[in-house]
């Protein structure tokens, strides 16, 4: 455990080195949040509701989606990709540390900072726009648990995309594509209930929906009782499954690196 704690701490301290890409992605997310607020306000502010969403509920949804967008974003993303591309990954390989766990430890370190930044923005927005429905303590606990599960889940998706750098130099393209796909299928772009049934079914069987949809639904109390627990269980199952899948992918990637010399 000790080396991983050290790596998480180190990541936290190194965060300053990646502040430029972080600020860039944060500002993108903030502007996007502003646009979404304006758009939904225009649609819902006069007491309308769409697909069961009132304006206060939509505000809550947008904020949860903003937080899940912030978590495990640029730091893990570009830091890992640039390490693979520059060949510095060879140094990681000779360390007596499991690569995947090591990167996860770093992602946790960064997540601390990302959470702080997200909370600051949320507070400002809440002060400025006010009024979101607060869930009961029980719901809040479930929501918090699912938000915690988002960190490893999103990490694994980002991590696997990062591993693709063993095959292509163009991480920008991969990152953009992942952001777009994940944005649609997680519910970050639009709540999944707005989708036509076929697209909703597609989203429901994929891991992305557990990133935004699950915590947002729990926060809004839209998955009552047992279904809330099962939503959490699905989230955790995805984490376990993807952890294993990422390991397989890593082994294939490393074989490529060691056999073909990068």
């Amino acid at each position: 455990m000790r080396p991983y704690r050290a790596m998480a701490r180190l990541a936290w301290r190194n965060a300053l080195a990646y502040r430029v890409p972080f600020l860039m992605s944060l500002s993108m997310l903030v502007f996007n949040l502003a646009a979404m607020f304006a758009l939904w306000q225009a649609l819902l502010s006069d007491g309308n509701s769409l697909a069961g969403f009132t304006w206060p509920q939509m505000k809550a949804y947008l904020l949860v989606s903003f937080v899940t967008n912030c978590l495990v974003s640029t730091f893990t993303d570009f830091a890992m990709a640039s390490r693979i591309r520059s060949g510095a990954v060879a140094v990681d390989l000779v360390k007596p540390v499991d690569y995947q766990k090591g990167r996860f430890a770093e992602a946790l370190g960064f997540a601390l900072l990302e959470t702080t930044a997200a909370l600051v923005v949320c507070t400002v927005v809440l002060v400025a726009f006010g009024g979101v429905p607060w869930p009961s303590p029980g719901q809040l606990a479930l929501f918090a648990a699912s938000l915690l599960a988002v960190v490893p889940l999103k990490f694994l998706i980002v991590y696997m995309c990062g591993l693709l750098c063993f095959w292509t130099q163009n991480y920008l393209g991969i990152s953009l594509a992942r952001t777009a796909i994940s944005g649609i299928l997680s519910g970050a772009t639009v709540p999944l209930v707005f989708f036509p049934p076929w697209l909703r079914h597609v989203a429901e069987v994929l891991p992305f929906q557990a990133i935004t949809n699950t915590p947002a639904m729990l926060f809004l109390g839209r998955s009552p009782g047992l279904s809330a627990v099962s939503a959490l269980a699905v989230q955790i199952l995805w984490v376990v499954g993807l952890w294993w899948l990422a390991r397989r992918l890593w082994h294939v990637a490393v074989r490529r690196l060691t056999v073909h010399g990068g």
Partner: protein
Amino acid sequence: MHTLRVYRRNLGAHLRATLEYQADFWILVVAAVLTQGAGLVLIATIFARVPRIHGWGVWEVVLIFAMMVLAQGTSELLAEGTWGLAGLINRGELDRMLLRPYPCLLQVCASRVGMNAFGNVTVGGGLLVTALLHLDVAWTPARIGLALVLLPSALVIKVSLTVVANSTSFWLRGAINTFAAGMDQLGELTKYPLSIYGVGLQAVLATALPFAFIGFFPVSVFLDHGRLAWIGLLTPAVAVYCVLLAVTVFRRGLRRYESAGN
């Protein structure tokens, strides 16, 4: 004429070099399509539930969106190099451009080709045509003339604003210009009808940073939409203003340029 020819050749040479990395090219085309696709999913799902946003119908909004995407693609094609300006200044590499008997700004612009450009120009162009076909526009000679003035003006505004944003690198001096990225993302807000925003933000996007003249205002006047449609007639004037602003800011910056090292 000579100036333009050299610009075209410079760009062409970079284009040829870029296209040699076929896989990268396709990854970025797909990424651009997916990214814009996510935006369209939002528009489509909203308009599946409501007929209009602040009086704007689905194809009208798509037309604004299309103008924005097309402008983005154009800027990535013609002025992507400006995104490297911060790096050029930071490393003192602007020197070599100052030593050639050719306008420095054009050398900077043509020093790179954005590979997303092809994806974005194709998607934007496709959407533009599709939206126009659905909108049942009466193509009188006057309207054709209007379109022929508005479209290039809008594209020029986008390119010029990109130059302005990145010219701040002369004052900011980092290796990456976070401010320019933020300004660009602020401009993304104008993908949706301007009236959904607060008055202050509307004023900024219409005057100080006239991103609204890339999509919203030209489309307003072209479709004769709303009380303030006439403002769209100012688009060519705004384009001239933006070009002058870009050239002035760049020149001012160049005077401050202190090369690297000493």
